[in-house]
């Protein structure tokens, strides 16, 4: 840039400055367009729904695509051609994984998500008495797990049922589908939503519960619109900007901004229920969680099953989840395994990078569950009044 000489007037200098600024803005804009297009070309998400191994950058730059756009890309009516994740977690048919039976013939069904599956695998490995059965969906919230329990006829053949609850997805307890809150993965499975009306849990069933119904609605504009209206009505995370597919999905920058919007939405919701002192007991999500575990225990007992609550204290959450539930657990005498009693939630080494517990810790938690079950089923004498987990 040439500096103004002494003969250059201030208005000329300003004009030169403005021209330069304009040109610079043009260059910035041009490079942004180049980046936007370049990223789309270099890190294009694999178009084949069955390709389950996109690289990290492909996933990174795709996260902010509208949920509808991602679902349409991954869904095919034929289950053999659709993305595997679109098949997971449906209530109908309810998929239960039964592991090898044990000589005692005793079965424990664990409802929840991948944390539950890992616990079940560890229990299956170490327990002499209990065979583990799981009903789980990826990242499932406790309302999904409770809805699964209500539909599960197979559990009645067993001795105990375990409901998994974790703080990281507690604020999502009022969601009707993982697709409204989980912006990392496009998971269309649906869940019951529970609301408290005059201290009573009221259940709202989702507009569809099967993959086939979902896939056909996605192809039917009017039916999909009607389903979205139900989500908008009952799902506290439903956000049209994040959900609906538009032409802007093709822009990398819009996708990045949409992802940022989603993260801030999540943070805002999390902060409304959780602060530095812990979960706000008056928050909807905490009240509903307490009501769900109380009702789960009551219904299980009516069926002659021992109810256990598995509290996964996620990394960075301390024992907040346990503290939010402990009054209800004690009031109703509900047995529980709270991970913070076994695994220090403040030590990052206790967790894998994907935030699951390490295998060794899952084993410790399974041992704790085994012991709680032994006490509750009368196979172990011990401090009967103590219903928590011990190492």
């Amino acid at each position, binding site marked *: *840039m040439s500096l103004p000489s002494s003969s250059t007037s201030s208005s000329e200098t*300003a004009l030169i*400055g*403005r021209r*330069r*600024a304009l*040109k*610079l803005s*043009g*260059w*910035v*804009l*041009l*490079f*942004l367009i*180049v*980046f936007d297009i370049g990223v789309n070309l270099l890190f294009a998400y694999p178009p084949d729904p069955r390709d389950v191994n996109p690289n990290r950058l492909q996933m*990174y730059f795709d*996260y*902010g695509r509208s949920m509808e756009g991602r679902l349409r890309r991954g869904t095919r009516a034929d289950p053999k051609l659709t993305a595997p994740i679109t098949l997971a977690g449906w209530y109908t048919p309810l998929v239960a994984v039964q592991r090898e039976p044990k000589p005692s013939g005793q079965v424990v069904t664990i409802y929840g998500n991948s944390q539950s599956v890992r616990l079940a695998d560890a229990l299956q490995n170490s327990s002499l008495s209990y065979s583990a059965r799981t009903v789980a969906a990826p990242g499932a919230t406790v309302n999904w797990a409770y809805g699964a329990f209500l539909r599960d006829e197979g559990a009645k053949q067993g001795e105990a049922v375990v409901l998994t609850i974790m703080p990281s997805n507690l604020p999502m307890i009022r969601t009707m589908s993982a697709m409204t809150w989980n912006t990392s993965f496009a998971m269309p499975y649906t869940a019951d939503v529970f609301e408290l009306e005059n201290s009573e849990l009221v259940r709202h069933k989702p507009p569809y519960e099967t993959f086939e119904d979902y896939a056909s609605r996605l192809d039917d504009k009017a039916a999909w619109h009607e389903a979205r209206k139900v989500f908008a009505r009952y799902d506290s995370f439903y956000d049209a900007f994040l959900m609906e597919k538009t032409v802007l999905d093709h822009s990398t*920058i819009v996708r*990045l*901004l949409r*992802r*940022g*919007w*989603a*993260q*801030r939405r999540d*943070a805002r919701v999390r902060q409304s229920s959780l602060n530095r002192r812990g979960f706000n007991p008056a928050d909807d999500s905490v009240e509903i969680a307490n009501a769900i575990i109380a009702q789960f225990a009551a219904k299980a007992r009516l069926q002659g099953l021992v109810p256990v609550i598995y509290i996964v204290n996620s*990394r*960075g959450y301390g024992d907040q989840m346990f503290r939010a539930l402990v009054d209800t657990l004690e009031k109703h005498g509900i047995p529980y395994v709270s991970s913070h009693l076994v695994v*220090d939630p*403040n*030590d*990052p*080494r*206790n967790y894998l*990078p994907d935030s699951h517990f390490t295998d060794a810790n899952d084993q410790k938690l399974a041992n704790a569950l085994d012991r709680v079950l032994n006490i509750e089923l009368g196979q172990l004498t011990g401090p009967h009044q103590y219903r928590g987990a011990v190492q």
Partner: protein
Amino acid sequence: MLFNSLEFLIFLAVVYALYRALPFRGQNWMLLVASYVFYGWWDWRFLFLMIFTTSVDYWTGLMIDRGRLRSAEIVVPVVFLSSAALVLVGCDVGEILRVLRGGGRSAPVLTSFLPYVLIGIPAFLMIGTLTYRLLTSMSEDRRRRASVALSIVVQLSVLGFFKYFNFFTESLVEALGSVGIVAQASRFEIVLPVGISFYTFQAMSYSIDIYRRELKPTDRFFDFALFVSFFPQLVAGPIERAKNLLPQISLPRAVTSDQIQRGVFLIVFGLFKKVAIADGVAGPVDTIFGSGGTITWADAFIGTLLFTIQIYTDFSAYSDIARGVAKLFGIELMVNFRQPYFSKSPREFWQRWHISLSTWLGDYLYRPLGGNGGRLAFTIRNLMLTMVIGGLWHGAAWNFVLWGFYNGLLISLQRLTYVLRGKRAFTQTLLTVTLMFIGNGILILYGRLLFRAESFSQIWLFTSVLATGSGGLDYGGTMPRLSAVGGVLLLTVWEVAQYRRGGDARFYRELPLPIVGFAVACMIFLTFMGTSNEPAEFIYFQF
């Protein structure tokens, strides 16, 4: 309201549009209202505190200079202060706003403080009148000294109560307990008002400068109120001097196209540093320093290194955005950072880091203590006192005191070496310069550990792990975000280029436009990538 939030961008757009449409006096009124809204966004009640200290310093400034107040100079602040007390303390502003928005009432509009306000206003007026009479009856010299003392006492009392009361009472109880005396601390639930340390120091410099006859006080109360509350730099600096900012507020301003361009660049640059980098490394830092488990050498080193990056990009980002926003209003704020991590010595570091605080401490603490005007021991005492108080300014915790002590020690050692070498600096060869960069870098890193640590036991743990290499290279923390990795690379290239051009912050103007365009586009793109990082408050808000 965070600079890196959508609310702030909307707020700024509205304020700026109004600013460009209004005449000079209207601009100042509008900026004052905007500043109060900006501050009240956190907590309306603390706005009263700021208005209180503003009023006291306005009066004391005039009393120092001319010893008399005109009736308007008494009445206007009294009415404003009383109204503020009634509305901000006596009423629940949040509730009033909720009612005005049609949200219905969920709590009483009047607070339990109202009776105290109704008693407090006449009591304050009575005390004020008596103080005024007392001051006017004094000789000029005594009046000047008493007025400046009054200003300092009021400012420090407010700061001391809100920031240090619990810290000192708890420390006292602990100290008594260690010698076997059991005492009970009556702990108040005191909330620290955002930015109180910044605006208190800014207001104090006003009355001290008038006392030193380096500044004439303003008789326009609302201009002074805007000087104290000017929103771009209100909550995390730069700590402005009245000599620089007040004339820019009191006199009509013209916004040049150069200011707009530079202002927009600083905002973009600041957002890039905050959103892409600082927020992108905050997660791993919090994980490591919040860890209650085993810490390895890699954890301690990487955690400290990332925090070193975080605090610079976070704090300098705030200063950049503050300066950029002020430029849009035609106001120039002081430069707060000059590439501090390129320092070759502790002293140089403090000439480049948080310049508005270090020069404040130099002007109003170190030099009044005697500076380096006496024997070496006297200079070292002054250095230590200044740095320890500077450390305590950051927060009411012993690790900040230790951090201040550590920095005082480093600067004192440097001074000692300098004197012992016959006041000759080291010869600067490539080797010595490299060694100085590396050595000073290590000292800065360790200082960051003291600053960030959550307890003395953590300082001890991290120090012993770093010294012994315990745990080796096994890193248990989370990884920084992609935006931070790219951002640090870009920022390093940018800062090296700047440093090689003598540290000129406008060096990029000499580069070809496509190169600058490419770099700015990268910054914007990385900022967009960083929008999905967990948005965190600016670190210095807590101070």
